C-alpha cells in the first residue's frame, strides 16, 4: 500500500466513523424522546430510497447540494472561504428566471444554454464583487459574502414584490413560464424510453449536475487554470514566484463558484417551480459548505456528501411525518450533528484510525 492509498483509506474511514457517530448520537436523542431509533433509521432510509418517489425527491435535493458544494469547493481550492453561495444562487436564479420569462417561446435547446449563461453571469457577478474586494482591497471574503447574501435577499424581495409580480396577484412571485422552457422532469425522460416512474420534482438538471461534477474535477486537477488556482490556494508566495496573478485567480475562483451556485436556479426555477419565487434557495447555499467540507472538497466526495444531505432532507421529512415525537426540528438536529462530527470534530478519531491503517499496511 503506497502513501496515496493509505491516505485515501484514512480519509474514508475517518469520514465513515464520524457519520456513524453522528447517527449514534441522533439515535440516542430519539431513544430519549421515547421512540425506537432503529425504527426511525429504517423509516428514514425507506423514505429516502425505499420507493421511486422518495428516491426522486432525494436526488432532487442532491442536485442542489452538488451545485452549492462545488461552489464552495472551487473557492476553497483557491484558499477562499466562500460562504456566499446562498446569495449567488439567489441572484444566479434571477438570471435563469429572467431568461425564461423573456424567451419563453423559444425552444428549450436554445434557452437552456442562455439560462446557464445568465446564471453564470449574474451568480458570477455576485461572487466577483466580493472576489474583487478581496483581491484588490483585502476585504475578507467571509464578511463580504455574508453581506452579499443579505443584499441578494433584499434585491429579490423588491424585484419580486414590485417588478416581477404580475398585477392582481397577491404572492410575491413571477408568472409561470411557458411550458416550452421547462426542463423535462425525470419521469418524462424515462417515458421516452418506455419506463414509467412516479412524478417528482427530479428533472434533467440532475444530469447537468453530474456533468458539472466531472468538469470541475477536470478543471481543478487537469488544466493549467486549475493548477494556478490551487497554487494560489496553497502557497501565495510560490504563486507570485511563478508569475501567477493572485488577484486574478481569486476573482476567477469567485466567479466560477458564483456561477455554479447559480445553477441551483436551473434546478429550482427552470426544472421545478417554473416561476421565480422568494427563497427558493433557502439554506441550500449554507448546506453546500458542509457538503463540500465533508466531501473533502473533491467532486466525488461532494457527490456522496450531497447524496447524504439529500437523504437527510427527504428521509427526515418522511421521518417527521411518520413518527409522532419527531418533528421538522429533529431533522435539523441530525443535520447539525452530521456537520458537528464530520466537520468541526473531523479529526476526533483520526490518530487512532491512522494507527490502524499503519498496522494494516505492515
Amino acid at each position, binding site marked *: 500500500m503506497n*502513501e496515496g492509498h493509505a491516505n485515501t483509506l484514512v480519509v474514508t474511514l475517518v469520514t465513515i466513523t464520524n457519520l456513524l457517530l453522528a447517527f449514534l448520537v441522533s439515535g440516542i436523542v430519539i431513544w430519549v424522546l421515547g421512540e425506537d431509533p432503529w425504527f426511525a433509521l429504517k423509516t428514514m432510509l425507506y423514505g429516502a430510497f425505499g420507493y421511486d418517489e422518495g428516491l426522486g425527491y432525494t436526488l432532487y435535493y442532491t442536485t442542489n447540494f452538488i451545485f452549492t458544494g462545488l461552489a464552495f469547493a472551487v473557492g476553497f481550492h483557491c484558499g477562499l472561504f466562500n460562504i456566499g453561495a446562498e446569495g449567488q444562487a439567489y441572484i444566479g436564479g434571477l438570471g435563469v428566471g429572467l431568461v425564461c420569462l423573456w424567451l419563453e417561446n423559444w425552444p428549450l435547446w436554445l434557452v437552456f444554454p442562455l439560462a446557464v449563461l445568465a446564471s453564470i453571469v449574474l451568480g458570477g457577478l455576485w461572487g466577483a464583487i466580493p472576489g474583487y474586494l478581496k483581491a484588490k482591497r483585502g476585504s475578507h471574503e467571509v464578511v463580504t459574502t455574508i453581506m452579499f447574501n443579505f443584499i441578494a435577499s433584499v434585491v429579490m424581495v423588491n424585484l419580486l414584490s414590485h417588478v416581477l409580480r404580475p398585477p392582481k396577484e397577491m404572492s410575491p412571485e413571477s408568472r409561470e413560464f411557458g411550458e416550452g422552457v421547462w426542463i423535462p422532469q425525470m419521469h418524462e425522460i424515462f417515458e421516452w424510453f418506455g419506463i414509467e416512474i412516479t412524478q417528482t420534482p427530479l428533472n434533467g438538471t440532475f444530469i447537468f449536475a453530474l456533468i458539472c461534477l466531472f468538469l470541475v474535477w*477536470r478543471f481543478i486537477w487537469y*488544466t*493549467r487554470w486549475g*493548477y494556478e488556482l490551487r497554487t494560489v490556494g*496553497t*502557497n501565495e508566495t510560490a504563486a507570485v*514566484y511563478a*508569475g501567477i*496573478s493572485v488577484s486574478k485567480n481569486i476573482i476567477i475562483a469567485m466567479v466560477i463558484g458564483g456561477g455554479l451556485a447559480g445553477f441551483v436556479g436551473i434546478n429550482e426555477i427552470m426544472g421545478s417551480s417554473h416561476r421565480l419565487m422568494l427563497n427558493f434557495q433557502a439554506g441550500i447555499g449554507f448546506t453546500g459548505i458542509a457538503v463540500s467540507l465533508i466531501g473533502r472538497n473533491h467532486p466525488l466526495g461532494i457527490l456522496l456528501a450531497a447524496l447524504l444531505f439529500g437523504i437527510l432532507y427527504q428521509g427526515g421529512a418522511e421521518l417527521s411525518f411518520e413518527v409522532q415525537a419527531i418533528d421538522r426540528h429533529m431533522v435539523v438536529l441530525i443535520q447539525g450533528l452530521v456537520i458537528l462530527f464530520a466537520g468541526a470534530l473531523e479529526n476526533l478519531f483520526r490518530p487512532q484510525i491512522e494507527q490502524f491503517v499503519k498496522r494494516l499496511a505492515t
Partner: protein
Amino acid sequence: MSALAIELTEITKNFGNVCANKDVSLKVESGTIHGIIGENGAGKSTLMSILYGFYQADSGTISVQEKPVQIQNAHDAISVGIGMVHQHFMLVDTFTVLENVVLGTETGFSLKKSLETSKLELQRLEKEYHLEVDINAVIDTLPVGLQQRVEILKALYRGADILILDEPTGVLTPQEADHLFRILAELREQGKTVILITHKLREIMAITDNVSVMRQGEMVAHLKTAETNREELAELMVGRKVLLRVDKAAANPGKPVLTVEHLDFTDASGVHRVKDVSFKVHSGEIVGIAGVSGNGQSELLAAITGIQPLQKGMIQINDESITPASKADAATMRRFGMVHVPEDRQRMGLVTSFSAKENSILGYHNDPAYNGLFEMDRDAIHSTCQRGMEIYDVRPNNLNLRASLFSGGNQQKLVVAREMERDPDLLVIGQPTRGVDIGAIEFIHRQIISMRDAGKAVLLVSVELDEILSLSDRILVMFAGQIMGEVLASTANERDIGLLMAGIKQEAA
C-alpha cells in the same frame, strides 16, 4: 570514560517502507559537546525526535544518565532532563521573552504571580550562563540570534541537563554562529551535555568533543573530533571522496546580459531597503552579492526577479528594458530569459503539498509544451520531471511524492533542476546551498559553474562568504541597502570583504 548522559541502543525506526534509523547506537558522555553529522535525510533528525519523544522507536532502548527510560512525548523528555532547540523556533512572536519562557509551566490562577517568580529564576539563568536577553522584549523585535538564545533559556528553565540543538546555525550569520558556539562552550563548562546536529563540517571541527557520523539511516562512525579531519568526515558522510573546494577555470565574460540601474526599493512598512543600486552581469561570469543577511539582498533579488514590482530604476535583460511602468512580474522575467532559484525553497520555490511532478513545471505551466486545448499534457510534464530528477539525482526517485516529503537537499535539487534545465540566458540564484548536504552542495556548485562556462550570466546571492568566494568571478558587497564596493574574486581576501560587509569603505579603512 566518564558517565554517560545518553545511551541509545539499536534504535530502529521505519516509516512505511522507508527505514529512517537502522540499529543505531549512540553514547554521549556527560559534560561534552557531541556532534551528530550526516547529510540531509541521513536520519539525524529522526533519531533526535525519538530521543525527544516525537516518535516512538520500533525497537531499541534509551538510557538517560545510565537509567533506562521510556520517552513517550516531549513531556517525558523534559522530565528526564532533555531539552531541545528546534531548527525552526517554537516561540510566540507577540509574547515577551519572559512569557515565552514561562509558557506551559504557569501555575495557579494568576499569571502575574507565576511571571514574577519565574522572572528571578530566569535572571539567575541568564547570569549563570551568560545568556543575556532583555526579558521584557517582544520576540518579534529580536534578531534571530537572540531568539535562539531564548530557546536555549527555555530549555534550561525547564531543568534540561542535556541540550539538543538541531541545525542551530542554519538561520544565523557567521558572527551569530560564533557567538552561539561560545555559549555552548560555556554550557559545557557548567557541566551540561550538548548534542549538536548539523551537516556543516566547520561547526563540528570548531566546537565538538566527539562526533558521530550517520549515513542513510545508519551510524557509520564514532570519532574523537581531535583525531579526525574535515576530509575524513566528509568521506564518511557521503560514502565516497568529495571535493571540498570548487575547481574552475578563469571566467570569459562577454556582453552584458543583466543591467541594473539606480534600483531603489522601499518595503511595505516604509523601510528603505535598497538604495540606488547599479551593476551589470555579463555572459560567462558569476557575480556574487555578499553581505550579512538582512542588508537588502533579498529585496534586491525580489525586485530583479519580478517578485516585487519595480518601484524605481531600470532593469535590462538582454535587449528588453523593464521600468516601473512596464508592470513586469515573474512571468515576464522568465519570458525575457531569466530563471530564478529563490532563497527560500519551501515558501517560494515549491508548493510543498504538490507532487514533485506538479512542482517541476511551477512557473512554466503556461508553456505550450505542457498544454493541450483545455487540459495539460501529463506525459510531457512527466517526462520533464523524470529527466530533471534523473540528471540531478533526486532521491527518492518518485515523481508522485509530495515535495514536503523530500529532504531539504533534494527539495533544492528539484528547484535547481526545474530552473537550470530551462537553458536560460541569466540565472539568478539565492542561497543555493542553504540547508543542503555536502554531496548536493558539490553538485549544485558544479552545475552553477558549468552554466557559466556555457556562456550564461549568473547572479549569486549568498550569506555564506565561503560560497561567494569560491564561486564568484566578481563580488559586490551590500550593506544597509547599498553596494559598498566591488572586488575581483581572484584578488579578494576575507578581511577586505568583511570590512565592506560591516559598512566600512576601503578608502576609510
